[in-house]
């Protein structure tokens, strides 16, 4: 596109961008896939999550985020950095009904919880009930801007009001700076070339006249 136009990514590109950036930042491939999926899901809802993702990955690299490693981490805890919304969301999906067997689940502080919401949609589909995120008695939705700006103390329950799903998918633009930052992180999943690898690794010669 011309220089001044927004870059409109395809769903595939959103997912690939998020996956590679998360992997480049150090998440395992399984979680990286879920980062990509969540970024693409948000784009499908008309939300450019790229800048938030950059923040999230920076927090991860500086150990300023808690990656839950056991069930007890999915509860509030003092003296702990806020929870990673993607790893938390993925764990909740894995648990499904088990997460809510004791009723509403308080998670504690979750960072940039906009990234939690796609997982709660997925969890709802799994358990057959509407699972939503709340701060006190306020149900959190993608319309709340504070989900993209910081930390919210969250509890989840399956008595949420279902979201309106009538919006059709439309491509949105991605913020240029965040795009570059995520691509740069993604490049860490590649291997710098050497003369040897360039010649031997992919098979063809450097010119193809035949």
């Amino acid at each position, binding site marked *: 596109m011309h220089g001044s136009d927004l870059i409109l990514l395809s*769903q595939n590109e959103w997912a690939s961008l998020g996956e590679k950036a998360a992997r480049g930042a150090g998440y395992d491939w399984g979680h990286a896939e879920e980062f990509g999926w969540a970024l693409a899901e948000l784009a499908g809802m008309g939300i450019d999550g790229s800048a938030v993702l950059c923040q999230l990955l920076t927090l991860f690299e500086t150990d300023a985020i808690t990656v839950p490693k056991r069930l007890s981490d999915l509860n509030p805890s003092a003296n702990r950095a806020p929870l990673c919304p993607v790893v938390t969301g993925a764990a909740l999906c*894995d648990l499904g009904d088990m997460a809510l067997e004791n009723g509403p689940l308080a998670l504690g502080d979750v960072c940039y919880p906009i990234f939690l919401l796609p997982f709660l949609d997925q969890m709802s589909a799994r358990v057959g009930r509407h699972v939503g995120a709340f701060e006190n008695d306020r149900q959190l939705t993608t319309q709340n801007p504070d989900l993209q700006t910081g930390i919210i103390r969250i509890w989840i329950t399956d008595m949420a009001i279902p979201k309106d799903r009538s919006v059709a*998918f439309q491509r949105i633009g991605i913020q240029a700076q965040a795009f570059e930052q995520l691509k740069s992180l993604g490049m860490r999943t590649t291997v710098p070339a050497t003369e040897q690898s*360039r010649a031997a690794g992919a098979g063809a010669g450097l010119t193809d006249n*035949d």
Partner: protein
Amino acid sequence: MAKQLHSVSTEPVYRGADDVMRLARMGSAHPTRLSFLRIMLRGMQQQNWRFERMCFDLDAQGVGHAVYTLHGPDRSYSLVAFAHDLPDDMRSDRVIATAWDATFALFDGVPSGDDINRLSQNVPLQEAGRVSAEELTLSRANRSVRLFDHVVTALAQGRQPDAHELDQVGYLMRTTAVYGSGKFGAQDRSEIANRPELSQPFQAEMMTVWLIRQFTVDVVNHLARQRGGASAVEFAPDLARGLGVGNSTGLGMAPFLVKHPGLLHAWASVREEALTRVRGVEHVSAQQRDDLCQALRDAIHNAEHWSSESPYMAEKLPQLRRDLAAVSAYLDTWPTAQSAHPWDDLWRWASDHLSSEGQEAVLSLMLEPHGDLIDGLADCLSFPETVAPAIQGAQTVQQLRDFIADTYDWALAYDFKSQSGTARFWYVSEEKLEPRLGSRHTEDGSDRENPLGIAWQVSQLWDQLCDMPASLSIAEVLLSHPQHRQIVRRIQSLRGCDYGEIRENLLADDILPIDMMRYKLAYFGASRFDPRSDKWVRISLFAGLPYPTDIGNFDARL
């Protein structure tokens, strides 16, 4: 699907994944009537599509653009082609190339002047440009230096090109990439997969290549006229018919089969279902026998003209020719009058007497006469793919262990403690994002490897699970050991998809990526598979088949 049993019953059973999903057999795959390009051509014929050259604006040097449109019952699709003047020393089939003889986009509809203008600023740049949701594919092609000029010169001088030369190369131009599925801004597959004409796999890509084929013939005719003026003649249709569009494919295609196991299962199970249905047929009509014999003649002809200097084909090709001759002899006395399952007789004979190459060729032959019985299976070739985090967290360690022991026993049989078990690693290069294969123990970079060593991952998961309490939930295992998340999701999501895994250790140093590429290319409908190394191949698409200008007059039984 039932595993292959040693049984005295004459009822056919499905071939098992242990047989079918090994690279020795996958690397012997032949195109069938269920290949993607055959499906597209049948659709063109049955739905009465129409071809229209909207514009052909090339100068005397052959530089310019053209628009070719296919009109279907509900929608139109247009190839927007840009022809360039490429110096010979810049011609490269590698992903790292920056210029090409021709570049293309498949536009969703009929492009306006503004669309063409926008595309002219992006398509020639390929990966360095952007296309939009109005484009379905982005591709490029290079000339065969050997054949292209020979054809133009001959036509310009008023004669047809040499048949032997045409045969040796087989194409005027070869594509070096055909991107779809949302790449570089193109439309996502999910947005178009509901359209009947695009619901089967790679239909937009097949349309693209088919239109490119027409373009290549039009370009040589144009250049011949420019060069020869009144003396020039048009390329004879019966000669042009034998040419396909070449395709130069490297390593990047091989990981596709590993990354899309659900799709792989769909493709393989359609093939096996088709074979099993035909084996169950109890009679042979005169028409079916004729069709079979014609298909055999075509296969023998193809094998005679199929040339490759590759050592990988040095034994396979002569073996194929011998096997096809043996089939010909066998058919002299087939079917026997008393046989209850004559097609099964043919199959069993092939299984007992022919190489893998010959057997897979016979599979293709057997499918040809049975369009009515199997063409509907084309609808089963797709697989809904989502990367939704759908892990079954409630499964226990014991349950998953049992499942792995049952369905991934092949993966657990490899020795990953030895260096040779993990000799290789798959990765993407920083430079131009080109997929490559590295040697783990002698090169840097394995810390950035792509997770394609499925058997190794299964083995590592198995070791982990053996170390954990049997009743622990997988959700808890993955919280504390997230490195297994991807493989667990894969294993769980492939329950029931017996053919979803390539049953090999893809990290071993005797793996031939070209076996994986041949398999996928056979599903495309590629003929004349010609490896240029163990990681790079040339093939041809649409050779011997009709052109877009032939729609409405398709003479071949597709």
